């Protein structure tokens, strides 16, 4: 083996982080400035809608795409994040930003707990458990008067929040920052040894075990991270709408999109969920005005089934990336 080749390979090892972050911040800034120029409030609301899915899909993908463990309860985690934000606001007067941190802790622990109980078994048991968890969380919230039960809870937001032009602009910016951070985390995980380990687990868990990979520890890390970020996606929701009820928080839309977006974009890498989220969320947002929400969701279900059938590796897979 020649020395030059070894050095080449070593060079490939070194991951370059700066270009990604510069690019991400650049794109985010461009989007923000574009919307500011347009000056239409609706732009911010539509933008928030898309960005929350970028966060949700990227979060889901850390466990689903990288490790191959499917979380069916994304709506439950997102809603748990939203309701945590409401609870800490009511109980301690915490505002949006502290609320986001609290949501991350709570849903991270939720993910860790579910994982701890089920990840020693086959992946399907974890998936079933997450599905049940979502149903149970919804029951809990519906029966909990403190957060308004099925009647819902209100969040009074200020009309303006300087230096921003409107509350809508502020909340959009918050979600934009969260999106950049989440995608950054997803990418960092992907290129780290955690990501490599998860990929090995996804490809062949038994072989990974046999060569010394600490599979349980890695899966728990991924589950906790995935749970925390899904909660983060949900925490601003009550502030965005000014009102939240269980039907909205536990919406089927979150459940199906969390799975559809990464799979349609391409599940093995950080870019897939971003592509899937931007595409699908924009489509759904555009369709809201023309068709009923049930039909809208129905179509997403069909798109999911059709895509996993004809393009199992998603859009990125179609274009040649593994």
């Amino acid at each position, binding site marked *: 083996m020649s020395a030059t080749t070894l050095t080449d390979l070593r060079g490939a090892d070194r991951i370059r982080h700066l270009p990604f972050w510069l690019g991400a911040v650049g794109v985010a800034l461009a989007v923000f400035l574009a919307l500011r120029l347009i000056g239409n409030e609706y732009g911010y609301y539509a933008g928030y809608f898309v960005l929350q899915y970028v966060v949700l899909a990227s979060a889901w993908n850390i466990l*689903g*795409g990288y490790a*191959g463990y*499917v979380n*069916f309860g994304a709506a439950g985690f997102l809603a748990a994040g939203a309701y945590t934000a409401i609870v800490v606001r009511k109980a301690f007067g915490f505002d949006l930003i502290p609320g986001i941190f609290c949501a991350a802790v709570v849903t991270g622990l939720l993910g860790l707990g579910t994982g701890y*109980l*089920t990840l020693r*078994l086959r*992946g*399907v*048991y974890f*998936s*079933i*458990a997450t*599905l*049940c*968890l979502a*149903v*149970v969380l*919804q*029951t*809990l919230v*519906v*029966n909990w008067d403190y957060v308004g039960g099925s009647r819902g809870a209100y969040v009074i937001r200020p009309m303006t929040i300087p230096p921003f032009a409107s509350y809508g602009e502020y909340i959009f910016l918050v979600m934009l920052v969260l999106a950049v951070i989440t995608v950054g985390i997803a990418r960092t995980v992907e290129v780290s040894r955690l990501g490599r380990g998860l990929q090995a687990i996804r490809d062949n868990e038994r072989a990974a075990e046999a060569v010394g990979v600490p599979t349980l520890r890695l899966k728990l890390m991924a589950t906790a991270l995935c749970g925390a970020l899904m909660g983060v996606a949900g925490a601003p929701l009550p502030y965005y709408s000014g009102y939240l009820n269980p039907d909205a928080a536990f919406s*089927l839309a979150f*459940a*199906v999109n969390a*799975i*559809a977006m990464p*799979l349609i974009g391409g*599940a093995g890498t950080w870019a897939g969920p971003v592509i899937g989220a931007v595409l699908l969320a924009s489509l759904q947002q555009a369709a809201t005005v023309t068709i*009923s929400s*049930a*039909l809208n*969701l*129905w179509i997403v*279900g*069909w798109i*999911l*089934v059709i895509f*996993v*059938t004809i393009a*199992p590796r998603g859009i990125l897979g179609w274009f040649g990336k593994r």
Partner: protein
Amino acid sequence: MEFDLSLLLNGIVSGLLLGGLYAVAASGLAVSFGMLDIVNIAHPALMVAAAFLVVAVGGAIGLDPLLCAVLLSPVFYLIGVGIYTFYNRFFERRGDEALQGLAFFFGVMFIIEVGLVMAFGPEQRFLDPSYAFTTWRIGEIDLPLRMLIPALFGLLAIGLLYLFLHRSFIGLAIAAVAQDAEALRLLAIDPVKIKRLAFGVSAMLACIAGGALIVVQPVEPSSGQIFIGRVFAICIMGGMASLSGAIAAAFLFGVVENVTATFFGPSWAPAVAFGWLLLVLAFRPQGLFGRAA
């Protein structure tokens, strides 16, 4: 709280009757998940779809719901065959069961549930058979026929399934394919054909369960969601491929869930399902009645 013996007794009896319904709901899953290892999370959705169809058809022509379900079951057999054929062609053969295959069944479940909302609206539907308002009484114990008849009907269906699996050639082939598909191939039997048939049978059972369900309680499109936890918990508790295990687990589950509901309120039922599932997975994943690995 005051301990009312009669309340407890009736809670237990109703729980047993519910268990009959849960047993037939889980039996289809015992075939598709327990024996064929296919994670068909759309099974409860199929059951609910069948219930809605029974309401539509049975209501229109004035037929008893259980009878209607039996008549509709061949349709569901074909649906099951179709779903498995598709799943095998696009997911099993590609080795994509773990992620894409699972997402596929989620998609099917989703399409069925939202489809029902679009076709029938989100409200509850019901179809009352002629005996719906009759209750037999044995001493302190109430036996509402709307629960007793479906439970007996369900057990009859399971009995027929048992005979089929243990006495007929095809039934034995299904048990065989669960254990060793390769050996089956060597006997010149195509495992895919057997699995297709078995999956069709499991869909038929979902249809039967749907008929039983609509007699017991009104259904809405989202009713399937809580059943997912129930039937998977029961199937796992029963030791997966064991039909008798699933029945025993279903009765036990029904009693615990119903007694909890009687004393703590019905809205906590999903928590019972989930709690059971977690306990079983944490302490005895091979099932309460299964053999130790």
